[in-house]
């Protein structure tokens, strides 16, 4: 019997708060410790180990130390890119780690003359497990790869086979990802023993249609929505799969790195003063010490401005009482009197998406690529490029030219320059 671990969507480097960044890293380190302790033969990471293609180097360094520790125990890492740690224009840290011999990308393949994508298996030397897969992409281009994938060749191969991918499967897509690009099950090659999926942040095992689809979900989370789910009891962790010539057992290993306190408040019909005093009252009754506290206030107030509520005061009170960190969410708080917040969404990506959708029509352009859906897509990509922060020790001029070059690539106007 052999064992492998299946991790996904760790998102090292996510969050602005240093504490949350550390918790992400801690979750990863804990998971690797379990893998070492359980003596897994190899670890499959189905994308988004890092939150960006060039993550914060301090965090990356800590992660690499842990990866090195596992590698020293002869644990192999098989990976695909995720939608976050891939860049169409730049080298990713994933490539760096592969070059350093710490990782093996299992996405080797090429498009043959007849237009079919031929993937090559990578055989794990010790267990003889065969792995291949398709990386995730920001623009959902992996969908095109799935469409042209030569499935028959992959299906003919015998042995214990693992298919690694990063993206939602249409049939199993959660409601909140309904608008996201996905691939139907029928695009996957049949007959693999295990389909190691990534991108979905909740653990999921599905075998209704003859495919052993597994999404371990994120280890900790990458945004407020994930943390809210954690606070509401969502179990986080990864899978350890025991196998011979078939899957013998799939065990979910829970990983927890902190305790949570969730404060949800419905401000509907109340004025700003009542909301403020109610929140102060609620906060006085919670035990925030050593917990990650999430405060979510939503609804339409009958009067006052949202800015009349001193959220920072609430945050200070909780921090003073030793909360690990306090995350405030009042994006869905509005007031009848002052409709200050025009666009609300579950997370930053949704808000951006909505803003683009609502405003794309205002921009008068003739190029169809800049209009409607393709225009929204392009805007999103460009924003992602523009969001990239300057790396520590990166010269301002290098940073600027990096961003300009990426933006030009994204806009596809290289020839103009």
């Amino acid at each position, binding site marked *: 019997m052999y064992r492998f671990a299946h991790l996904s969507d760790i998102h090292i480097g996510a969050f602005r708060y240093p504490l949350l960044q550390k918790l992400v890293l801690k979750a990863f380190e804990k998971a690797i410790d379990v893998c070492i302790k359980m003596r897994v033969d190899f670890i499959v990471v189905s994308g988004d180990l890092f939150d960006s293609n060039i993550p914060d180097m301090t965090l990356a360094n800590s992660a690499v130390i842990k990866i090195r520790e596992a590698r020293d125990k002869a644990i192999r890492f098989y990976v695909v890119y995720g939608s976050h740690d891939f860049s*169409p224009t730049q080298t990713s840290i994933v490539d760096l780690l592969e070059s350093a011999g710490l990782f093996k*990308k299992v*996405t*080797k*393949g*090429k*498009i043959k003359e007849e*237009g079919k*994508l031929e993937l090559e298996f990578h055989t794990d030397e010790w267990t003889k497990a065969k792995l291949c897969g*398709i*990386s995730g992409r920001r623009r959902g281009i992996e969908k*095109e*790869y*799935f*469409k*042209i994938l030569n*499935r028959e060749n992959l299906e003919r191969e015998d042995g214990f086979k693992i298919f690694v991918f990063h993206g939602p499967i*249409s*049939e*199993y*897509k*959660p*409601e909140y*990802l*309904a*608008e996201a690009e*996905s691939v*139907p*099950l*029928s*695009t996957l090659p049949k007959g693999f023993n295990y389909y190691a999926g990534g991108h979905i942040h909740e653990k999921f095992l*599905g075998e*209704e*249609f003859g495919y052993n689809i597994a999404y371990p979900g994120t280890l900790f989370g990458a945004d407020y929505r994930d943390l809210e789910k954690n606070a509401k009891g969502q179990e986080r962790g990864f899978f350890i799969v025991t196998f011979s010539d078939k899957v013998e057992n799939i065990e979910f290993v829970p990983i927890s790195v902190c305790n949570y306190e969730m404060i949800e408040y419905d401000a509907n019909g109340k004025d700003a003063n009542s909301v403020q005093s109610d929140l102060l009252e609620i906060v006085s009754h919670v035990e925030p010490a050593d917990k990650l506290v999430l405060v979510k206030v939503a609804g339409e107030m009958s009067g006052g401005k949202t800015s009349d509520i001193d959220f920072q005061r609430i945050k200070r009170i909780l921090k003073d009482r030793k909360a690990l960190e306090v995350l405030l969410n009042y994006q869905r708080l509005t007031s009848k009197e002052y409709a200050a917040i025009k666009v609300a969404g579950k997370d930053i990506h949704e808000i951006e998406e909505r803003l683009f959708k609502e405003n794309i*029509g205002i921009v008068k352009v003739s190029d169809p690529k800049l209009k*409607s*859906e393709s225009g929204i897509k392009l805007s999103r990509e460009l924003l992602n490029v523009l969001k990239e922060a300057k790396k520590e020790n990166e010269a301002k001029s290098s940073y600027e030219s990096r961003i300009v070059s990426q933006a030009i690539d994204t806009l596809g106007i290289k020839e103009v320059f």
Partner: protein
Amino acid sequence: MTVCGQIVDGQVGKILIREKSGEKIELGDLLVIDNSKGYTIIQIYDLLYGSQISKLAREQIAGLKLEGLGTGLEFFEPQLRNYILAQGKAVLHITNKPQVPKTLPDLFGTVRHVEKKDLQFLSKPETPIYLGKVRSGSKIIDVPVYLNASEALVHHILIPSTTGRGKSNLVKVMLWSILGQDKAGVLVLDAHDEYYGRTGKGLKDHPKAKDGLLYYSVNPLPGTNTLVINLKTILPDHLDGIIQLTEAQKQAVGRYYAEFENEWIENILRGERIEGVKNVTLGVLQRIIKTKLSVYLEDDKIVCKNRVFNNTAGKSTIMEIVNKLEKGKVVIIDTSKIGDEAELLIGSMIANDVFAKYQNFKAEGTLSEKLPISIVIEEAPRVLASEKLTVGDNIYSKIAREGRKFKIGLVAVTQLTSVIPRDVLTNINTKIILGNEMATERHAIIDSAAQDLADDDKTIASLDKGEAIVTSVFTKFAIPIQIPLFDELVEEQKRSKEQLEYTG
């Protein structure tokens, strides 16, 4: 310009034309009378014999010939004495723009067959639905006929015809032209799995199918979607008018929903008792779910015999379909293996979601920016027949009556127009009439047509396979068309292959 006849008599709606010898005027022919200010188009709806010889004399001549006594007997100048009279109606008068004729054309005016140049006013709209070419009798004129999708789809389209007259071919031709425009979303509930092209040619062969077409089936082809709907996404409202429930059963369903929310079906199947629902009602509901939806409990697990409904998968299927429709995609749902009720229920779930969403858009004032959505429903009387609607409205009848206000339409395909209530038929502003040998059906169609087709009974009866008449508030007159064969249409368009680069 070849003269084919001359006006000899008549009145409004009944113009009598004498056919020129050697020319052939057919039933359904479009003829043109030119005048100094423009021209008038006449459509022929009846043909009869005319003769300068009295009936008695004609009978006598025939008798002589038949009995062998008339050897060498010939008409002197036969082309002058015996002829064909064509009866027609002026359908359009064209001066600067096409108008409904309000005057009679000149008596003794000469008549010619319609030509391509006479029909230039049939322009291509911005969002075209191609139907075929103009047909004059059995002659095809090289003038394409289009409907404007953004108007016609939301005002509903009826395709009435008996079996074997080319309904599916027509729908495929229409979808072929809509696909890839991304200007109107179309949901096709495909009861015979004939549109996608699982075995032969189909919409999958469209050059823009990759981005513009989605296909859902319980038996998906590689690259297509599994038709799987999560039981938790079914709401009691979705059953309205689709599955017949008594008042007591409806109340019981309501109680289960109130108690268990989206797990109401599962709890009915598991026989969870709740206050106010009798055992017998629960038993009946369990049976209804089992028989109508093929969902039942086996070894404590929810199982679906037709594989459509699932307790784990399919949570976002309906939402995804609705999103794609909103983006102007064509979505085909192969319902050939899932039974009537399941098919209509899925359609109802999607239609309800679309309706609710578009109602919201209207309330928000953003409806004008949204694309129209249409639902193609075969054997429309299953949901639109009078007897179905007596027990209450369903989402399809609601769309037929109110959908236009929210940019949602129906393409109703039926063999039986007569069973659809008049108020629903009246709301359907475009009818593409194919051949129909049943007089009652023809009358139902004629009675609800956008143009006066009272004289066209014979023309409709004589429509051959692939021939149709388009009557619509959006067409200048009831246009006779020849629908192309879908397979030939596909042949005309070759798929251009895009080269993709692979980076692992």
